[in-house]
């Protein structure tokens, strides 16, 4: 899978490495800014309030 991605990237190895680093950065940013804050909502230890149900 990743080997195919590596082959699909254009240019020499140095360029491929740079593009890979950028892609990783984007993925991590999306995880930290969107995915994790969403996933966090269901964590039990963030429920700190009392409310009548």
């Amino acid at each position, binding site marked *: 899978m990743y080997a195919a991605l590596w082959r699909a990237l254009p240019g020499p190895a140095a360029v491929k490495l740079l593009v890979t680093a950028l892609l990783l950065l984007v993925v991590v940013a999306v995880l930290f800014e969107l995915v994790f804050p969403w996933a966090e909502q269901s964590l039990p*230890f963030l429920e700190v309030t*009392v409310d009548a149900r």
Partner: protein
Amino acid sequence: MRAAGSPPTETVTGSTGIRATAWRVLSVLGELSITLGVVLALFVVYQLIWTNVRADRLADATRSEVTRSWTTSPPDRRALEAPTVPVGDAFALAYIPRLRSSIWGTPIVQGVSAQALARGLGHYTSTALPGELGNFALAGHRATNGEPLRDIDTLQTGDLVVVETADQWFTYSLDRGQIVGPSDAWVLDSVPGSPAATPTQALITLTTCHPRWGSEQRWVWWGTLVEVTGKDGQPPAAVTNEA
């Protein structure tokens, strides 16, 4: 190796084809598993480290926002607007000498939404404001997202909680801690446990999760207002004393 008259070559290429496909499927599955593992590890880093970094940053920004609002808008004008604080606005700062490492100039934000709690302590909107007769009730995280109430288990009867507003310092003394259920909203009553009673005291309530990494229960502390100091005088000793 293969002698003449051996089985047709199609069978051979067929079986290697299947083997190659299986290998490819397995390797993709393996890479997906590794990716999932890395993502989960990143989530742990996010939760245990990043949310605290982010919360500290937000608390710092919120603290400057509050102190700036105190110096720019005249107190008498705000007194007219009281007691309505818009949800999401920070209006006070909290100091707890016993929890000095986690609650010291911690912003108190109107509302107990996740957004409010990510910036400091959240104020239950339906409860009293600092110093008012009734119950000034706050919630705070105990694990991650700044975790201001991380060490709630170290609080003792008689510990002080100081709340700084635009023009006053309110010093509360903690009376009682209790572990209750998540739906025990009576802890927020003006007179906790007596919803019909008319409040004669100004109370403070702190709520957080219990156990620290769970949600089965809530840990609650109540305190009573013991001292009110104007901003024109000296700040209360609990705040000025070095720990």
